[in-house]
């Protein structure tokens, strides 16, 4: 191929042309990705992370304090219950001891063994009192904080003892 022909073919190739408008901003925009919508001040505030972190921290702190407080109160309640159980045990031992003391005194006085009980009324009364005592003991074992039941138990025991004394004196 002569130089002349070569030049002619080169002239036949696509020629540079300048676009009518500046295309670069569009290209730059596409490279940068889609433009976010314009945000309001509130939306911008919501998108700011630190207040959320602070609120979450506060909530966590409040919940933490409440849980700790609850655990503390539960612990106190349990300790109160344990202390009440100890007091109830001591009081029951005292009540039993006083009853046993009377029993021993009766035995020493020669009233050995219970006499035959013939009155159904009093047998029923003794059964009622005995049942009441057992129920009170069960309840106190279940919930020693109901210490006032000790008074009821002592009264029932005293009444039963008085019937017993009447019976033995008969």
């Amino acid at each position: 191929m002569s130089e002349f022909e070569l030049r002619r073919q080169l002239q036949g190739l696509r020629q540079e042309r300048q676009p009518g408008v500046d295309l670069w901003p569009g290209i730059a925009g596409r490279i940068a990705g889609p433009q976010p919508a314009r945000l309001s001040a509130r939306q911008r505030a919501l998108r700011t992370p630190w207040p959320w972190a602070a609120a979450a921290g506060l909530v966590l702190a409040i919940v933490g304090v409440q849980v700790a407080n609850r655990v503390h109160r539960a612990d106190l309640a349990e300790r109160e219950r344990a202390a009440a159980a100890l007091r109830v045990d001591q009081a029951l031992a005292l009540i039993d001891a006083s009853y046993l003391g009377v029993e021993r005194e009766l035995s020493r006085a020669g009233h050995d063994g219970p006499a035959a009980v013939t009155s159904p009324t009093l047998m029923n009364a003794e059964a009622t009192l005995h049942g009441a005592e057992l129920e009170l003991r069960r309840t106190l074992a279940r919930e020693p904080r109901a210490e006032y039941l000790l008074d009821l138990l002592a009264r029932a025991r005293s009444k039963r003892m008085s019937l017993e004394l009447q019976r033995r004196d008969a």
Partner: protein
Amino acid sequence: MSRRFILAPLALALAQVAHADSPIEKNVPINADGRLEVNNVRGEVDIRTWDRNELELRGNLGSGSTLEVSGSGASVSVEVKTPDSGRSWFWGGNGPREDTRLEIRVPKGISPGVHVVSADVTIDGLDGGREVEVESVSGDIRLGSRAQRWELHSVSGDIHASGSAQRGSFETVSGDIHAEGVSGDISAESVSGDAHVDTSAPISEFKGNSVSGNITITGALAARGRIKIESMSGDVQVSLRGEPSASIEAETFSGSVNSDFGRVDREEFGPGERLRTRVGGGEGDIDLKSFSGDVTIRKR
């Protein structure tokens, strides 16, 4: 047929006549404010009043029992005795075989003390005496009187008291208590029986306790008056008349607290409800507890 066989049934019949009830007829002088003691194991004791300073005793003496009347004036004792006097009537002794009915008329100002086992006791019309005391095992007690003090105790018999008294003490094991008209210092104690007390005048102090019986009291609270009731499984109800002035505390472990005063809180740890409040000037004190029964405080 020999004479022995003819006389034997006749002797038996005569013996039965001798053991039949014998009428009682006895009059004894007694002071208008005298003391009367009555002991009767079984049957009935009925005490009424009249306008004479004299005790009139009527009724029927049960077979095998004897009647002993002693004293006069300031103190008179009426005692029905059984042949088996060395043993208690109900614990092992034979006791009377038949009922004895005692109908007694007395001046209205006397103070009686009545002790029975299975006899019902009725006392009516007394007015102005110091006290009325009745002890019973299974007999019911019915009292209609005005006295300074009532003291009524029973094991399984019911107690019904009306009239007025400045102090009242009621005690049973399984019998119910119904008292109206008592005021001032009152105590009601039972194991399984219910207690209903309605007061005529403001309550200075009421103490009630039961194991399984319900306790109900209705009345006004005196200034600095106290109401204290404790029960294991019985319901407790207090109905307050007028405008109470008291600190109120009520609690139950497994029942519920219902109140016209204050706010009821549930226990945080464990079951139960509690009320702590103050009404009026908070001068008086109301303390109500039931383990598994309901506690109710109402304004009437």
